[in-house]
């Protein structure tokens, strides 16, 4: 791609050709940097979206312009320059493929590097994958098998074309456009993401999985995920992230909305391993994510996350327990090493009667990192007999890191029962020596102790994911002891 400056863009925007899309001239299909209404329109046009979607995005953009970046989190970083980011980047090889043979070999090589073999995945694990590489889905597998059950699993762009009514009905209902600064930004410029609909009474026969990856330097990713489990249905959804080393900071501001209708259940598992920056704290991904689920009557949403990457994490997967007897769960492992900062936790909003929530948070801090748990348990006046159990454990390695816990409780109903337990421990030299004496070296000993500490959460992950997550924990803490 030839050098393309902001001035060039401004020049182009003045010309009439714009409405047919200036971007078609650009070989690599990456938008010039900067953000304004025209860019928002261009994204929408590029994705051949219906008119109402363009308006929806613009509404979000206008709201975002008036908002300021939140500063209450226990993290410190140089704020991104939102005008220095390109808001759309797509792999060159389009259109869609019917089989892997048609996929660009370069792209397949990238998958191999990531340890993802689509063929193997297909053959062995029965995992259907909607792979998002730089914002555009390039391959969707198992679509046919899912289709027979009436399950829709595709990119959100495709959903907007093929199932606009479903998208229109649900998008923004759990995370409104104006919810917060990053959610508003995402609503305005999201480039792609996944869409999933499970029909009434259907139990999804396989784990649905999406791998995200940031591919091109300087392109922020704005994923939008929408999962709808219709009445009495069940789905388990896996989201895994890997990102290659980068020098400059990359912004990642995703939005995930889950809707569990009456008697439905959604399990949403994440392994997040974006580039954390180097040992000196240079570079790394800013991960500012809004994830929220809505439970109708007797519904259940379970969030499980293993967060090992990113330089700065700001993330609170939450449940709105609207229906009576609904259940929300949050299981989290957050690892920070070197100069990483994480402020993560959950919100459990109890609105319905007999609603139940469980929070298990395991924070592991090493190096010079800061790891904060921030959680809200809110019991509304009508939520009779609401129950919450929270457990927040912190494990410290060394003397230069920090673990912080910020639990908030708002109970407006006297029948509520809320329990909160918290512990802080340090990996002791005695524990390490004990392992050493049994022939286990220090690196492995730490992995063992950390895995033991995180076990309650690791056990909640689907099998293959748990193995991957354990490896990630080990890799993330490599070199954390002197």
């Amino acid at each position: 791609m030839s050098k393309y400056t902001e001035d060039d863009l401004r020049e182009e925007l003045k010309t009439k050709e714009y409405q047919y899309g200036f971007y078609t001239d650009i070989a690599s299909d990456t938008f010039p940097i900067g953000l304004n209404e025209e860019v928002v329109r261009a994204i929408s046009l590029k994705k051949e979206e219906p008119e109402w979607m363009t308006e929806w995005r613009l509404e979000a953009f206008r709201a975002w312009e008036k908002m300021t970046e939140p500063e209450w989190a226990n993290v410190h970083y140089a704020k991104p320059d939102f005008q220095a980011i390109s808001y759309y980047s797509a792999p060159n090889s389009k259109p869609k493929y019917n089989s892997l043979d048609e996929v660009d070999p370069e792209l397949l090589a990238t998958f191999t590097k990531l340890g993802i073999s689509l063929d193997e995945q297909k053959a062995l694990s029965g995992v259907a994958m909607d792979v998002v590489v730089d914002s555009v889905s390039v391959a969707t597998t198992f679509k046919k098998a899912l289709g027979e059950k009436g399950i829709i699993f595709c990119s959100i762009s495709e959903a907007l074309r093929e199932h606009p009514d479903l998208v229109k009905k649900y998008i923004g209902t759990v995370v409104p456009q104006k919810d917060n600064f990053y959610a508003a930004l995402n609503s305005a410029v999201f480039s792609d993401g996944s869409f999933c609909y499970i029909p009434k009474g259907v139990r999804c026969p396989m784990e649905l999985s999406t791998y995200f990856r940031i591919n091109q330097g300087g392109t922020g990713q704005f994923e939008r995920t929408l999962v709808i489990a219709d009445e009495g249905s069940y789905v388990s959804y896996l989201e895994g992230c890997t990102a290659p080393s980068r020098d400059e900071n990359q912004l990642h501001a995703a939005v995930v909305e889950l809707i569990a209708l009456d008697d439905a259940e959604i399990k949403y598992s994440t392994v997040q391993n974006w580039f954390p920056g180097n040992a000196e704290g240079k570079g790394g991904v800013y991960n500012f994510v809004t994830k929220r689920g809505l439970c109708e009557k007797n519904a259940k949403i379970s969030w499980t996350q293993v967060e090992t990457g990113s330089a700065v994490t700001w993330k609170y997967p939450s449940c709105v327990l609207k229906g009576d007897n609904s259940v929300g769960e949050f299981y989290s492992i957050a690892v920070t090493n070197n100069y990483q900062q994480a402020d993560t936790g959950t919100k459990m909003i109890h609105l319905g009667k007999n609603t139940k929530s469980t929070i298990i948070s395991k924070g592991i801090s090493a190096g010079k990192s800061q790891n904060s748990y921030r959680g809200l348990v809110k019991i509304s006046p009508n939520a009779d007999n609401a129950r919450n159990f929270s457990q927040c454990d912190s494990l410290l390695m060394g003397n230069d890191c920090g673990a912080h816990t910020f639990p908030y409780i708002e109970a407006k109903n006297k029948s509520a029962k809320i329990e909160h337990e918290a512990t802080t421990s340090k990996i002791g030299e005695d524990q390490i020596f004990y392992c050493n004496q049994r022939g286990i070296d220090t690196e492995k000993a730490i992995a063992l102790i950390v895995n033991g500490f995180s076990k309650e959460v690791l056990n909640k992950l689907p099998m293959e994911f748990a193995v991957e997550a354990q490896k990630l924990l080990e890799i993330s803490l490599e070199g954390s002891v002197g």
Partner: protein
Amino acid sequence: MLKIENLHASIDDKAILRGINLEVKAGEVHAIMGPNGSGKSTLASVIAGKEDYEVTQGHIVFNNENIDELAAEERAHKGIFLSFQYPVEIPGVSVTNFMKTAINETRKAKGLEEMPAKDMLKLIREKSELLEIDRKFLSRSLNEGFSGGEKKRNEIFQMAMLEPQLAILDETDSGLDIDALRIVANGVNKLKNKDNAVIVITHYQRLLDYIVPDFVHVLHNGRIVKSGPKELAHELEEKGYDWIKDEVEA
């Protein structure tokens, strides 16, 4: 097998061991006795390679190899085992998982493949039967919520699994009632053979009724001040340690 020559060791510049000489041959059981603070546990830790201690003089030779510079895990790989006086808890890590890791790390160090799961299970079954350990116990988190007796029995189970050449039992009898003591001692005796050796560190003679030593050494102020046959232990029990102290200072 083990040869300790003029060993001096200190912690935070405080000298604890002041010239230990000890030789242990295959097939032997040695008891090291002595009053509190005489350096018994320090000796055990230094042989095992705990980094907190600084060896200021002397050498430890194991199977004709100087092991002064080896890390604790490398010494373990060579067959040195320490049964801890206070075994630490590792929450969330089962006894089985811990043993599996220990065995496979040792095999890896020797250039061997991981032990197949089938063989591992067989070994666990054999050893738990030998030591009369309920296998439910093995799925519990390592030492978490274990009673004193369970902790010590778990140490001996680990010893059985790892089959060390040299086992050092550091105050294995402390905190045990007589029944637990008998079970633990029986376990050690079952594992004892002509190719391995045991060093029993104890304050009291009663453990030595069950694990009978070939030699008894008395440690005082960081030195072995008296050595003798098993009867020496009885003499100490009768007369107390002051007798030795007086004899040394006389």
